């Protein structure tokens, strides 16, 4: 399994913590998924301390936390959010999201590179939520990122991998960089497909949290991601257009 900023993960799933029917289901889904990383966020805290109970729940799961800058539209906003996240969650990890388009939540890759540079220079370990553009990937690595997280499809869409060709090209272009398909996963087969491309992990949330049975879906995602990873490691055959008989022809009786 690949290493993310010096941390090796035994399980290729990174799981979000939003939109579950209840904290109890969130906890059960996490345990069933085997995910070693939980994405979390920051929001306005009330004097009632609602965030404290959630933070305790996450700590009890014993997983690594990956705070995000979800909803940020400017470099300044994202950088300040990252500073605040580092203090609340006590981690240098930051899932850097800079949203550029309201409907698709497509990353603003220009601001993303700028913010990644600022945060990397300050010692953050940046997990950039990006597109599958190779040049942007190069710029993010040059900015100091050691992980790339291209989208599979728009966040929460469940559409799977919109452009497997581009994701494959990204894997080929950055053979030594840990790559994570982040967003767009809807089905276990999507997670398997990402891992079959040689990706190091998949990050998903809605597909599990909004499933009719989130705990069962968490289990299915774990098994699918593992199957895909094993398939990739086993060096799959090349696809071909025409048939190739699997049963040997030599020694076949003449009975026609």
């Amino acid at each position, binding site marked *: 399994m690949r290493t993310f900023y010096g941390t090796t993960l035994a399980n290729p799933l990174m799981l979000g913590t939003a939109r579950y029917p209840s904290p109890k289901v969130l906890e059960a889904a996490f345990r069933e998924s085997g995910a070693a990383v939980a994405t979390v966020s*920051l*929001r*306005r805290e009330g*004097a009632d301390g609602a965030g404290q109970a959630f933070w305790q729940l996450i700590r009890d799961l014993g997983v690594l936390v990956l705070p995000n800058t979800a909803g940020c539209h400017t470099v300044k906003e994202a950088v300040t959010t990252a500073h*605040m996240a580092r203090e609340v969650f006590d981690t240098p990890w930051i899932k850097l999201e800079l949203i550029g388009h309201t409907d698709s939540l497509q990353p603003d890759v220009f601001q993303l590179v700028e913010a990644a540079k600022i945060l990397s220079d300050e010692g953050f370990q940046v997990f950039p939520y990006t597109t599958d553009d190779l040049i942007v990937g190069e710029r993010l690595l040059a900015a100091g990122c050691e992980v790339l997280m291209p989208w599979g499809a728009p966040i929460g869409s469940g559409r799977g991998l919109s452009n497997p060709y581009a994701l494959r090209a990204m894997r080929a272009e950055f053979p030594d960089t840990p790559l994570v398909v982040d967003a767009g996963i809807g089905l276990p087969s999507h997670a398997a497909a990402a891992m079959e491309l040689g990706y190091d992990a998949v990050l998903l949330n809605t597909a599990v949290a909004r499933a009719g049975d989130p705990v069962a879906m968490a289990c299915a995602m774990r098994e699918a991601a593992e199957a895909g990873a094993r398939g990739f490691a086993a060096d799959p055959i090349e696809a071909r257009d025409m048939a190739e008989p699997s049963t040997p022809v030599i020694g076949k009786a003449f009975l026609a």
Partner: protein
Amino acid sequence: MQITLNGERREIAAATLEAALTECGFTGHFATAVNEVFVPATARSGHALSEGDRIEVLGAMQGG
């Protein structure tokens, strides 16, 4: 003085960020910003507030 805390206008007696948070009942683990600039926990007691300051208090929240 009057300040805005998490989007709501409030009248407070406190003169520093630390004292304002205590006055408003905040306990536990959270991060703060004043006028869109992060103020680390270690700097809160020395951060004097001014009339009209905008304070953000953020805590852990579910995220994807």
